[in-house]
């Protein structure tokens, strides 16, 4: 059973700078990507750092040899502590997708933003 919680105004969430809110005792980062809003628990599954306070960035795409293709700009968050890269949409850690940051559904009504927890 998920419950809908008001989180913030949509205008509070900037591109490349997630809004960190506190909802039902959880610290959650809300990100604005070009396909809408996404939310991750602000706790890194590695060692518990405030994941959403790390930089929003891209990374190199997996290639077969000495080629650097910068990819996915703005779609990843890089943990502030040890730099693990997480997919903002799925919460998956790029090196090992079985490690996931917890994600939440987000919905928008007018200019209000809600989290489903």
């Amino acid at each position, binding site marked *: 059973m998920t419950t809908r919680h008001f989180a913030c105004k949509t205008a509070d969430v900037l591109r490349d700078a997630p809004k960190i809110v506190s909802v039902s005792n959880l610290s959650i980062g809300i990100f604005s990507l070009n396909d809408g809003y996404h939310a991750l628990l602000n706790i890194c599954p590695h060692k518990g750092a405030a994941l959403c306070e790390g930089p929003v960035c891209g*990374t190199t795409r997996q290639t*077969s*040899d000495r080629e650097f293709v910068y990819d996915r700009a703005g779609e990843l968050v890089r943990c502030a502590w040890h730099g693990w*890269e997480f997919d903002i949409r799925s919460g998956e850690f790029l090196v090992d997708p079985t490690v996931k940051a917890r994600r939440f559904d987000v919905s928008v009504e007018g200019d209000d933003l809600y989290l489903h927890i």
Partner: protein
Amino acid sequence: MFIVDCDCHNYWCSATVLEPYMDGVFKDMFVRGEKTGPRGAFPHGHRPWFHPEGFARHDVNPVEEDDNYTIMKEKHLDKYNIDVAILTGDEPIEASTLANPYYADALCRAYNDYLIDYWLPKDDRFWGSIVVAPQDPQLAAAEIRRAGGHPRVVQVLVSHGAARPYGDPFYHPIYEACAEMGLPFAMHLGGQGGINAAPIGAGPTTFFWETHAILPQTAMTHVASLIAQGVFEKWPALKVVIIECGVAWVPSVLWRLDANYKALRKETPWLKRLPSEYFKSNIRMSTQPLEQPQNIQHLWATLEAMDGENTLMFASDYPHWDYDDVTKLHIPPAWREKVLGLNALDVYSRLPQRVREAAE
């Protein structure tokens, strides 16, 4: 028990045995040129520390060239029932310390011909390592293609002393040739001095035993480099064998590599697996000299962490001063069959079926 000795040194009394295998200007240089050691020494840029007792066991005293084999047969091969001895030469890997890559290559070619001609036919148990001089990877690759086709040659050998870390794309022509010929690439402790990078990170050490204990530093560099530079993505079937560089350091380096890669994978987008996974699939370590803690359990826990049951291969280092005999190998008893022989059969794919069957 089927035993493969992955590091059996075939000695000579004098490097002049190479003369018949050299010609032209390099023969002139070899015969009349300056030498680091006495007459009959092999040319190389010499390391700064010397063994206070000499490298070889004092019960191995060849006088005639043929004694080198007869003593090995009696005191090592027959005594311990060695089934396969991978010959690793001795001085020739030091060719890597010479600044002149053409001379270095000529010395390696002469050695390889001598190995094939003189040593390999002597005993059915002998399989050879051809030596190449990595300072010119194109010449080294050509030599791998030339001498590497001999059916009793099972690996390509260099020294672990090197001018730069072995994963560097500079060296990739060597791996291309190894992959093409189906040969593993091995590095053996040695090759310090001359043009090669200092094997000691903080600067020159003083004593031989002190130095010998910390030489694995260089092997750590090569392991990290080979993995990071994507050598095993480019040549997934390539096996790298690291000889006589110690093993207990391996888990700690792999732990560090994995942790750093998890944070910074974007530097090397060509990698598809964790560094430790490349190690387990592509790198093999020879046992001698295995570390000797007071409490053997400490060693065994460490070996477990590097999947030693599958990544270690027995080596004796005959006839060197720190020789390990088969019966003194301190590994968990359940691993003996694999470490003493079966792991090597996976790496040295040219060892024939007949030998494999004997192993089963």
